[in-house]
């Protein structure tokens, strides 16, 4: 389903819980699928004893992927034209993340309508882990 301009207004929001109690195994699963085997994400011994972090942590790109799941569930399949994020805090095993999109503009360009969205993904403490923006094609 493609969103319709007539049914949208600035300030509308859509949010989803995109992961609950993030497991180390899911982080490993992402390493395997993406090809990023940085030990910081899967090797507790290296990460705590050599790199100096309290534990392994998620790839930023896993958090982007989780945020993207909320986004495509909202705007529909194959309609995204832009998706960008900043990684503002690390995501740790055990984290529960909520991703939210807020409509910032509904506009027309070259006869095509678009929705602009602000994105924010937060953890169980309300701390933002991803901030971003996206644009998708919408119908009239």
């Amino acid at each position: 389903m493609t969103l319709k301009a007539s049914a949208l207004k600035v300030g509308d929001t859509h949010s989803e819980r995109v992961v609950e109690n993030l497991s180390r195994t899911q982080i490993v699963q992402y390493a395997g699928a993406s090809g990023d085997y940085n030990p910081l994400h899967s090797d507790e011994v290296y990460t705590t004893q050599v790199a100096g972090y309290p534990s392994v942590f998620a790839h930023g790109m896993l958090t982007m992927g989780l945020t993207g799941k909320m986004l495509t569930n909202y705007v529909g399949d194959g309609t995204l034209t832009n998706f960008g994020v900043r990684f503002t805090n690390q995501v740790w095993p055990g984290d529960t993340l909520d991703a939210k999109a807020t409509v910032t503009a509904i506009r027309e360009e070259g006869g095509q309508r678009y929705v602009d969205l602000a994105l924010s993904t937060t953890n169980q403490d309300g701390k933002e882990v991803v901030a971003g923006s996206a644009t998708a094609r919408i119908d009239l």
Partner: protein
Amino acid sequence: MAKITFPVEASHIMMFARAVGDTNPVYHDAAAAKETTAGGIIAPPSFAQAVAQFDPDYHLRPKPGQKWFGSAKGPSGIDEKPASSGGLHAEQHFEFHRHIRPGDVLTVETKPGKVWEKESKRAGKLTFRERVTEYRDQKGELVITARGVGVTTERPVDQG
């Protein structure tokens, strides 16, 4: 940087979608995907980054016969400080000219962009490096333009 050939396969798209916990059939079920606005299986929006699988020199994948900086007998397989130990991902942006589909054979070229520095209370001196990557299809048409920013920190990010 050398151009990388990225052949896109349906099984890889399925595994990637699983890893981000996305059960949307548009990423794994050809019959169901045909009925969606995408008209067939497409890749999730951040899939392009999995090009790392096809970079023969990718530094974050262990390679046979080469020392790996992760733990083995000891906490690290190398003696010196790993070159990439302080590297973190700061930003990632994708511009979609169209969405990636199984069967695409993408040619991927990355060019270095701007470099800048910033002082941070939580991690010391930060050095940001931008990389711009173009993904072109078998017809030479632009599919995705990606802009990534990596940051190297002077010390681990303080969690306080």
